[in-house]
């Protein structure tokens, strides 16, 4: 005859100012004791209205915007935008330019995944040790970017029709040295974490996304592959000559945080393989075609998509024959991956909600644009 437990659920603000929300992202969690009853996502703290600003600038001036939306993978964003404009204006990119673009995109994936793995282990409580190791390796990749494009984070390296400048002489030996040491470190990182009982206990069966939910919520990237769906744009819709390289797609078993972790670790190894093959077969010739500064593509629209570190990164550009795009839209993989946050966190504890958020690997700059 005892009535149902009437303990008071109260709302906790895992708010914009919180050590593990990967940026200014707020999650209003209604909690009953230790269990999460309801989770509501509040975004927009980093909205800079990039898509509106892009309509006043010429096509080439928009490239720096793409660096600053997802500040952890600026090369992939540049690539996406340039592909969209090239499809719109019908410009084709020389062989060498495409190969350099592939190398840069894969290097960017390695750097971004290191950041993601480190931040995720921070959320499970391995305080700072794996993230420091990952960032140490990420620094080596950023040095390569600085060597070629002059900037570490927002590289602004790609241009419409190819890349801004050719790769310097000592880029190749530095990259080969990096490729030799990386697999050793990746095995060490995997040995430290994926066999660790406490890490397993904290991430196995946490925030499980069944395959049908993953497909219906149009997730992408490691989130989708974690649930066991073998979908990778580099294989499904190859661009920049990805069909020439042979690499495999890692997929998880049941779509929990642990699967997403091991998928990202395996993707690091595959990226190293791609870079190696791209470096070996690096063709000669020009690194980009000449494109008039005030490019006026014909009337029409184009959508190009790239397999970014967080998933399908799409650029939709509409032109009305003016110097600047009529409409400029970015498909943000982080925001769409985050749409399943409610299904992931409800039912678990507060600690699981943080781990779930970490496993999605969001970048708030991309969510709010």
């Amino acid at each position, binding site marked *: 005859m005892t009535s149902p437990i009437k303990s008071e659920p109260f709302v906790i603000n895992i708010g914009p100012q919180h050590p593990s929300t990967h940026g200014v992202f707020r999650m209003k969690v209604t909690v009953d004791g230790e269990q999460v009853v309801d989770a509501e996502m509040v975004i927009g703290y980093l909205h800079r209205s990039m898509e509106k600003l892009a309509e006043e600038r010429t096509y080439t001036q928009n490239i720096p915007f793409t660096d600053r939306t997802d500040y952890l993978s600026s090369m992939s964003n540049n690539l996406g935008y340039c592909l969209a404009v090239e499809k719109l204006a019908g410009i084709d990119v020389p062989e060498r330019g495409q190969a350099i673009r592939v190398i840069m995109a894969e290097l960017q994936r390695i750097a971004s995944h290191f950041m993601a793995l480190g931040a995720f282990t921070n959320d499970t*409580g391995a305080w700072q*040790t794996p993230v420091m190791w990952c960032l140490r390796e990420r620094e080596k990749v950023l040095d390569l970017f600085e060597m070629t494009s002059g900037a570490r984070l927002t590289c602004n390296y790609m241009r419409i029709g190819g890349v801004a400048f050719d790769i310097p002489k000592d880029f190749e030996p530095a990259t080969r040295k990096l490729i030799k040491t990386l697999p050793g470190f990746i095995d060490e990182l995997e040995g430290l974490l994926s066999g660790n009982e406490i890490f397993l206990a904290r991430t196995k069966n946490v925030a499980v996304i069944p395959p049908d939910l993953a497909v219906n919520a149009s997730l992408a990237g490691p989130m989708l592959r974690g649930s066991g769906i073998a979908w990778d744009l580099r294989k499904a819709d190859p661009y920049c000559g990805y069909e020439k390289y042979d690499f*495999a797609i*890692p997929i998880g078993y049941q779509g929990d945080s642990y699967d997403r972790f091991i998928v990202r670790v395996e993707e690091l190894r595959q990226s190293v393989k791609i870079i190696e093959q791209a470096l070996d077969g690096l063709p000669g010739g020009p690194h980009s075609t000449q494109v008039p500064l005030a490019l006026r593509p014909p009337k029409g629209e184009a959508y190009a998509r790239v397999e970014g570190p967080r998933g399908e990164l799409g650029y939709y550009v509409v032109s009305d024959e003016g110097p600047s795009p009529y409409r400029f839209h970015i498909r943000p993989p982080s925001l769409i991956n985050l749409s399943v946050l409610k299904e992931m966190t409800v039912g678990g*504890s507060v600690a699981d909600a943080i781990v779930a958020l970490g496993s999605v690997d969001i970048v708030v700059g991309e969510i709010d644009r």
Partner: protein
Amino acid sequence: MRVQFLATDNWYDLRDLSNLSSAILDGLDKIAPQGVVYVAAALIGFVAAFLIFVLPSQLFVGVLGERKLIGRIQSRYGPNRVGPYGVLQPIADALKLLTKESLTPVAADRLVMYMAPVLFVMPAVLMWAVIPFGPNMIFADIPVALVYFLAISSLPVLASFMAGWSHNNKYSLFGAMRIVAMAISYEIPLVLSLLGVVVLTETLSLQEMVFWQDRFDIWLFAVQPLAMIIYFIAVSAELNRTPTDIAEAESEIVAGYLTEYSGMKWGLFYGMDIGYALGAAAFGVTVFFGGWTLFGLEEWVPAWMIFVVKVWAFYFLFIWTRGTLPRLRIDQLMSFAWKYMLPLALFNLLIICTERILWTDAFDGDKPFIYLFAIANIIFAGLLILGWARLLGYRPERTQTRPRMVQEAGGYVPVAPARGEGR
């Protein structure tokens, strides 16, 4: 058998500081009025124990050593800006905390919030009364030293709860609830594991335990490895250090029960956390690692030096786990304490009692059989830990740690049924 070999009466023999103190006290006794000697003895004891050993090791091992070692674990240098190799960093920290303003939220319960750090510091100092630093260098050799230590170590839990409760802030309420629930459930395995030690050494006084280990030339962690492991895990849960630092889990509930504290109030909590860790390390060394004895070396090297180095070595275990392990969830910690640690502690007690009876009746207490029991216990410990884990359905070989590789992009790839489902 009181160890008298060190009580030479020339005061400069620093191997045992009690020569020096007894010389001073006898001199004082002749000239000073009747009660003064007690006060002087207490002061000398405090200066010797606290200022020479506890405060410096708290500052330099706890603050500086820990941050430098954790830095090394994370392939970076620890603090090296303040003073040569960062040696003055603890002093800089203390000054910073002293000068920082300690805020009090408007809706906070002012009295309780002010009392909590005081109540948190008091047991940290009281804890050092029963720890033997040398043969005669013990502040208060009371016959119930072990139970005294357990009583004192249950007080800071209340102080943390008061701190968490008085902030009137959601995160700190979470921290307070978590720390109380966990500390209570980890106190029972702690008491039971120490009970095994008491059964074997027939005494509650720590000094007697050190003499017992000296007499039988074996350290108690060899005779009771299971009790040692349970003690270490339970104590690291009491002090809420990783992997059980859920009370102030930075990534989940910001700083747990310390969220609203700033300035020296937070400094007291931070300093005394290290004090308790050192206290638990000192207690663990005295009970399990032979206190100040090192198989005869203590006749040449001063006993308290051996003890200090051992405490720092034990403290390194805390630093090591803090640097490498992630954090467990509160419900996993609870089930681990009740379903895993408690039964193992009871088994350990059962084994030790049978060995005790066997030892006194069948072998009438002579030395070599202790080594026999030690080997048997180590084997038992291994079997018990693995066997009990498998009993609770822990099948490590079932978890796939590598993803499946697919060459072509396509739809959902169903999971091949694994060979018999794990837990």
